[in-house]
């Protein structure tokens, strides 16, 4: 059985200082009205201006080397900054993917040129990325991707399409998983590569897929003979699957997997405390206990990632339990404070409630569905 044990992390005074700084900054921006808090802000809170402000203050690419525009801070310092942003419902979706995934991916597998070119722009909050994984016929069964790049002189020509691509309409580039050799049904995970696609390149078409709220966050992206120069290949040709999988512990264990509806929980507790109703607050106590536990697990994983260990099994567990928790928040809140949920409501509580309910089906789908995650966990537990 793979170990489920996580380290106990004590947050130092240095870390507390980082927390005070980011919290103070967010507070001021909220006061000024430059940002509007919302639930699920890491998917749907888009503000290029806010991302640029964060970049200016050193809160993007925090752990990366200084020579690539990073700030050489610890994973725990970064953790504290992103959890403060999420808890406040700040608009972070513009740079979220680039900061969380593209940066670490390029640091690990990118060429010197790629690192020098992309990382400083990302860290400034000026260059945004999307991830191209799912396709119309490759959802949970990701190894079924069929987008195909063919070698030509000086590069590759890409044809195919991607779907459910968050933020592609705002992003400058997309890390695209595609086949660079024909699919071998015996070894489906082989022959895939990751290409850096310029979304402004000729042959790329982006079409919105509206959420059930009518909001536009998802897209379909079509490639029609898109030329990708050789220097835009990430890592090794044929190694795309392994490279992509290495990112998953980052993607699955972060605080965005249990804080998507935190602004609602915060509003709920504020309302109950104002009423002075201890009995109702006690009904939320189990939720606080779950959240506290998830957060400690997630911090433990961040600490392990810093040591170079990738605890993919526990990361999958945190995502499974965390996204369930995010969904429960609205279910608990609606029974304790009567409200009229509406996206357009002027009441913060009603608005957060509407966002929480209407965004909730996505929580347990994106980044690996609950069904896929549980399969991964079960296999890990029995060691097969």
């Amino acid at each position, binding site marked *: 059985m793979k170990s489920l044990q996580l380290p106990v992390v004590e947050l130092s005074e240095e870390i507390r200082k980082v927390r005070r700084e980011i919290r103070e900054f967010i507070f001021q921006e909220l006061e000024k009205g430059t940002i509007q808090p919302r639930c699920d802000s890491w998917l749907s809170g888009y503000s290029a201006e806010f991302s640029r402000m964060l970049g200016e203050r050193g809160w993007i690419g925090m752990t990366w080397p200084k020579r690539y525009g990073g700030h050489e801070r610890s994973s725990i310092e970064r953790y504290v900054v992103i959890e403060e942003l999420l808890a406040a419902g700040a608009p972070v979706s513009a740079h979220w993917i680039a900061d969380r995934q593209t940066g670490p991916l390029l640091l690990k597998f990118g060429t010197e040129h790629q690192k020098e070119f992309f990382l400083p722009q990302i860290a400034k909050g000026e260059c945004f990325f999307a991830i191209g994984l799912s396709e119309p016929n490759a959802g949970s069964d990701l190894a079924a991707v069929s987008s195909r790049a063919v070698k030509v002189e000086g590069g590759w020509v890409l044809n195919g399409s991607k779907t459910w691509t968050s933020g592609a309409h705002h992003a400058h580039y997309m890390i695209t998983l595609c086949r660079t050799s024909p699919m071998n049904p015996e070894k489906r995970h082989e022959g895939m590569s990751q290409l850096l696609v310029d979304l402004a390149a000729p042959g790329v078409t982006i079409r919105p897929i509206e959420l059930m709220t009518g909001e536009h966050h998802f897209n379909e992206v079509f490639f029609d003979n898109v030329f990708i120069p050789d220097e835009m290949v990430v890592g090794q040709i044929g190694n795309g699957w392994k490279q992509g999988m290495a990112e998953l512990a980052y993607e699955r264990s972060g605080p965005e997997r249990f804080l998507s509806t935190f602004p609602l929980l915060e509003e709920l507790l504020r309302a109950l405390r104002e009423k002075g109703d201890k009995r109702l607050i006690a009904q939320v106590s*189990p939720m606080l*206990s779950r959240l506290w536990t998830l957060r400690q697990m997630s911090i433990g994983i961040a600490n392990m990632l810093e040591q170079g260990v990738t605890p993919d099994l526990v990361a999958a567990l945190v995502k499974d339990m965390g996204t369930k928790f995010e969904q429960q928040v609205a279910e608990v809140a609606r029974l304790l404070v009567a409200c009229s949920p509406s996206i357009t409501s002027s009441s913060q509580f009603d608005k957060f409630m509407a966002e929480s309910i209407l965004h909730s089906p996505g929580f347990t789908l994106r980044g690996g569905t609950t069904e896929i995650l549980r399969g991964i966990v079960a296999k890990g*537990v029995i060691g097969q």
Partner: protein
Amino acid sequence: MNDITQMLMQSTTKILKDVCTKELVNESEQGIWAAKLWCTLADSGMITVGVPEELGGNGCSYLDAFSILRLAGKYSAPVPLAETFLGNWLLADLGEQVFDEPITVAYPGSENGVYLQKQEDGWVISGKANFVPWARFAKRMIMLGRTDSEDVLVLISPEQGRIEHGKNLAGEARDNVIFEDRLVKECRVIPVDAKTVVNKLLYSGAVARIVMMAGALERLLELCATYVTERTQFGKPLHRFQAVQHQLALLAGESAAASTAADYAVQAFQNGFLSQEIAMSKIKINEAVGAASPMAHQIHGAIGFTYEHTLHQTTRRLWSWRDEFGTETEWSEKLAEEYMENGRDGLWPFLTRS
């Protein structure tokens, strides 16, 4: 984890694996004292952990003690190890000498008002201590009482009272000890601040049960992982069925969450009985027990429901321990009180303590 803790864990695991067998656990449910297990633990210095050497302890830390208890919970050790730790820590706090014999502690609030009157040659005691763990086997019992003028801690041999045998869901001894206006010559009566003692007992008791449950949940997962690989139905091992995989994954989640919650409860205890974290940990683990135990039985099918199998030794303990030292409801109320008191800046600062 430092070297000493690691060594303690290794030797405790070895003792428990060797001595604490299925048969021994079953025998203890029939009322037979697990003398061999206790003596082996005592001989290895496991009994006075968490007490400074000058008071008769072995000088190891609370962390060491809780690590040992976690293993005791994992292997269903049928001895009052937790109670002895709690009792000794209480005595050490009061500057009293500790014991390396079995001690027990009456739960705070379960004393039904034990009343003591001073006589020339002892104390006349009346009242009752309910559901006292392992009382019939304990050499000393600690309970709270009252004299005409003050609250006191009473250190007494349970045999000085009348012992009514009882047991919890797991068959662990939970006895009533009744004092019927009896003159007791040999007992130690120490004036205390009752609220402080009750709090200390509640927090240390809750953390003791928390780590024991975390250990037992780890055991549940191990038993289930083994069973689903060994048992075959419809021509394939159970772990190949997606429905079974999902149960196993949920169980692993509860076990992992319990493990983390327990680690942080121990840390909160060491940092000065931080009640907010201990409350959240106890609520989470109690909840984990309610979710994990039925899943473990579902995974094991009818075989796990029989006396023959060892699964019930763990699940019945989990169902017993979660109700000791505070249910989810009680700790939820406590957490709500803390939030009313310290939550003026909002939930996030409250949760992150900053």
